[in-house]
């Protein structure tokens, strides 16, 4: 135990020591601190997987996902088979002004069409532009990181 200096003196010592140590702050626009891979920055949409099942829109507590789709005829996979009718996505908007980043939509999607990406620099001057449409959500896809390895002792999911 170092000799118990009176609090007043040891307090001054602490501030002087910190003054001489380098600062810890990150000068944001010039330097950037990259968020961890799992950070929930923005939701990306992989359009091919989406079958317009509306599960995400229904489970979202903030009601901030708006989906419109229509059905189309598709040629049968095997020739001679019956014609398939497939739902096609017309509109898939996520209103990031309302979204609370809870991640229920990403989890509840049965077809893995929604992914998390740690991208966070999409602030806007006008709040209406926070309503990201299908195209913008698709653009976020390439910022989605690979699922990183788990800690030792974790059971690897099959």
């Amino acid at each position, binding site marked *: 135990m170092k000799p118990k200096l009176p609090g007043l003196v040891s*307090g001054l010592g602490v501030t002087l020591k910190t003054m001489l140590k380098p600062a810890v702050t990150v000068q944001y626009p010039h330097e950037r601190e990259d968020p961890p891979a799992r950070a929930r920055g923005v939701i990306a949409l992989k359009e091919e997987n989406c079958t317009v099942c509306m599960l995400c829109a229904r489970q979202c507590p903030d009601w901030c996902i708006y989906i419109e789709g229509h059905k189309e005829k598709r040629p049968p996979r095997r020739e001679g088979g019956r014609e398939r009718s497939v739902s096609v996505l017309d509109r898939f908007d996520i209103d990031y002004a309302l979204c609370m980043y809870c*991640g229920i939509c990403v989890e509840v999607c049965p077809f893995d069409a929604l992914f998390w990406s740690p991208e966070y620099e999409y602030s806007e001057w006008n709040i209406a532009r926070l309503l990201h449409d299908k195209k913008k959500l698709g653009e976020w896809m390439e910022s989605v990181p690979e699922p990183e390895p788990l800690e030792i002792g974790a059971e690897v999911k099959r």
Partner: protein
Amino acid sequence: MNRPPRVSEAEQSRASTGERVSAVGASPTATSEPMMEVDPRLYRHLADAQVNVELDTGDMILNLGPQHPATHGTLRLVVRLDGERVISADPIIGYMHRGYEKLTEFRTYPQITTLINRIDWLSSFANEVPFIDAAEQLMGILAPPRAQYIRTILTELSRIATFLLFLGEMGLQVGALTPAFYGFRDREHILNLIEAATGGRFHPNFNRIGGLKDDLPWGWVNDTRTAMKTVFDACDTFEDLVAGNEIFEARTRSIGIIPAELGAAYGVSGSNLRASGVDWDLRRDGKPYLAYPEIDFRVWTHPDGDSFARYWVRLQETREAARMVLQLLDQLPSGPIMTKVPLIIKVPQGEIWVETENPLGQMGYYVFSKGATGPFRVKIRSASFSNVSILPWLLRGVFVPDVITILGSLYFILGDIDR
């Protein structure tokens, strides 16, 4: 690597005697303002609070809040002053009332877990634990041991994050500018850990009924160990800079003394009650939950019950939490993260009361379920609500600057009060 607790001998000896500052009188008598005699030491600063009649200056009503730097959010304190001394204080709350209990009636269980971690947003992971525990007990399922351990680690990490902020914040309430920045700086390490594991710094949403959403990322355990080292250093810095400072002691010793009986009658809980000498910690004494039965930890109490005692108890609890995390990391079992749980969760009929030791105090949920995908009614018992309800009694006859010290030392969060 468990460092011996750096505690001044004086506190150590007095804390271990475990004697409680007792309210000499009986419980509050049946008047509107529960007047009661209090132990003479406490009355010292209440005694000279009598209104100086001969001057007979009119009282000044001052509004501390809802827009005020010292009220941690939107608490409004209507204070009747005689000069600088408070005659009566009436906290007005509700500026942040979001109506959680009404919202839970219109939500399914997964949606509720994302909502309730916004009640006490500083230790948000700890809010989810009692609700998830309640739902799991109602469904009769048990999360696998690894999930229990990771939940305990994240709860203790959010406790450290909340207390580090408090240790810095308390300095700011009393006037020192620098500790607040140290508090925020050291808390960053903990928030980065929580974000690396759960994806969210403040709102992890990592708890699921039956286990966790995912397992820990690679290298997380080592990062946590190094982070614990910075927590120990931070606690030593606060010990030197704030707790040891004679001016800080002059400003907080014997200010806002809460007698143990009255604290219990008002429902004050957690570190505030332990600072009045009550040796009661749900992690050890309540129904066993998460992985707390498997680790040993010490419950810190302090006999004085004043603002300094509350600061001191939280400082020791931060160190204790860091030691607990290290123990948990050593014994972390391997295995699955999630038990088998149906896709659409329907909790069978029944009701249950589960409470846990959150950083701010005891948080509990009384869940009534009627077998639907959402609960019928959830009573959310939050710690700060009761901790603040003692203010009208506590602030009588106190100087204005001491009002700020007491508000700071009770450490409440407005979201927790207003729900």
